[in-house]
């Protein structure tokens, strides 16, 4: 008997994977423009002029998906007093001593941080990216805005990359069952109890 619990609706999963694909595209093309040692990535992706053309447009698609995620998940992503207690014990989480952690709701503090990093860095990337997209529309007297945009775009992109590495590692290798949940949408009751006990109790009424 299948008593699995629905963790992500079909719509949430589709949105997640659209975000993943668009983010990976802007990440890879962005890295190509970031360092001469990574310029070959643009060649693999159809050439650097093509990459430069699509990078901002695909980024706009990513931002649209991010906006949807913000609307749909901001309630679940609110950081609670309970999360702060969990955060103090994060060393146990890192060392896989999950039994001794306080119970949490649908998302843990790390997931919430990842979400908010992507939202806020995304806003900075969007605003600075518009400047880099059409720098000549700024008059020469406002060239300081271009300088600021370059530094902000690179710095915030690097922050998302760091978060992204951890996110992918945890979602695929570290937290077993996590990757299946974002593909098929379901988790086992034992998984829910272990990782998100408050959420488990809320959705099952147990």
């Amino acid at each position, binding site marked *: 008997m299948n*008593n699995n619990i629905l963790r992500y609706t079909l719509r949430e999963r589709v949105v997640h994977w659209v975000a993943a694909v668009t983010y990976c595209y802007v990440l890879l093309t962005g890295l*190509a*423009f*970031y*360092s*001469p040692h990574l*310029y070959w990535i*643009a060649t693999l992706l159809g050439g*650097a*002029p093509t*990459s*430069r*053309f699509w990078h901002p447009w695909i980024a706009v698609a990513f931002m649209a998906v991010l906006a949807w995620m913000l609307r749909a998940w901001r309630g679940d992503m609110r950081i609670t007093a309970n999360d702060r207690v969990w955060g103090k014990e994060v060393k146990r989480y*890192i*060392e*896989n001593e*999950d039994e001794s952690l306080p119970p949490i709701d649908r998302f843990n503090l790390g997931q919430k941080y990842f979400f908010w990093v992507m939202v806020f860095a995304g806003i900075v990337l969007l605003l600075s990216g518009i400047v*880099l997209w059409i*720098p*000549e529309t700024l008059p*020469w007297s406002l*060239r300081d805005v*271009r*300088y*600021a945009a*370059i*530094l902000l775009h*690179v*710095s915030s992109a*690097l922050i998302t*990359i*760091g978060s992204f*590495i*951890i996110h992918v*590692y945890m979602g695929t*290798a*570290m*937290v*077993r*069952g996590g990757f299946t949940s974002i593909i098929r949408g379901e988790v*086992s*009751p*034992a*998984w829910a109890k*272990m*990782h998100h006990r408050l959420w488990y109790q809320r959705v099952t009424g147990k």
Partner: protein
Amino acid sequence: MSTGNLRIQAISGHAGPVPGSGTQRQEQVCKLIDTTTCIGCKACEVACVEWNDLPFRETVFGNTYQTMPETAWNYWNLIKFNERPGADGSFMWLMRKDQCMHCADPGCLAACPADNAIVQYRNGIVDFQQEYCIGCQYCVTGCPFNIPKFNSHTKKMFKCTLCTDRVSQGLEPACIKACPTGCLHFGTKEDMKALGETRARQLREHTAHGRAGVYDPPGVGGTGVIYVLHDMANPEAYGGLPSNPHVPWPVRLWKGPLQWLGNLAMIGGLIGVTLHYLRFGPKKVADHEQ
């Protein structure tokens, strides 16, 4: 330069030394613009458009004789007209031919991410290679003189080439060829610098322009285009010529320390998660219910 390949080192069956052996060559070329003898005739603008076969561009009227507010992707050479009132109610024209300065330390080249899109030749000419340009416009941000311009149709950047095609064949740039007053000169950097200094000294000693001098900004390592100005204390008055241009420090920070920090952080992150997996392994759920 193409003739650089054709300098003879040895000759077969030749009695005596190779003719011309032991001669020295000044490789750095330079354009000298004497703003004090420019009459604003715009012959250089026309010559540039003609030689480089640039398509027609409509002029923009802004209550001045200037052809348009700034250089464009297909208008690389523009005389900036500035009216300067004196303290005694007099008035003078400052006319400055604006184009790429061919910096020894080019900000466009520092900012460019595309392999081969911007090159600096040994003779000092900084040139855009449009076939490698990706149209990212980072050079717009890198340039301290507001020179590289974007063609939004072809998605390529353009600017003055210092007529590298002419110079490589031993000819002067088209603008120099066209100048009727002789305010434009072309030669080696050393010669142009000396000529400019002579003219500036003449101005200081024999005219009212006591602050005349040669503009060859050290902040960008000197330039392949230098000016004689009536007033070295105020280059900004010549249509926004920066008094102390540099490659912008955010560009240096971005291409230098920030890039290394980012590389270390990314590699460190990958190593970090790998070590975590080796040390602690995955989180597994003891699943009795399935």
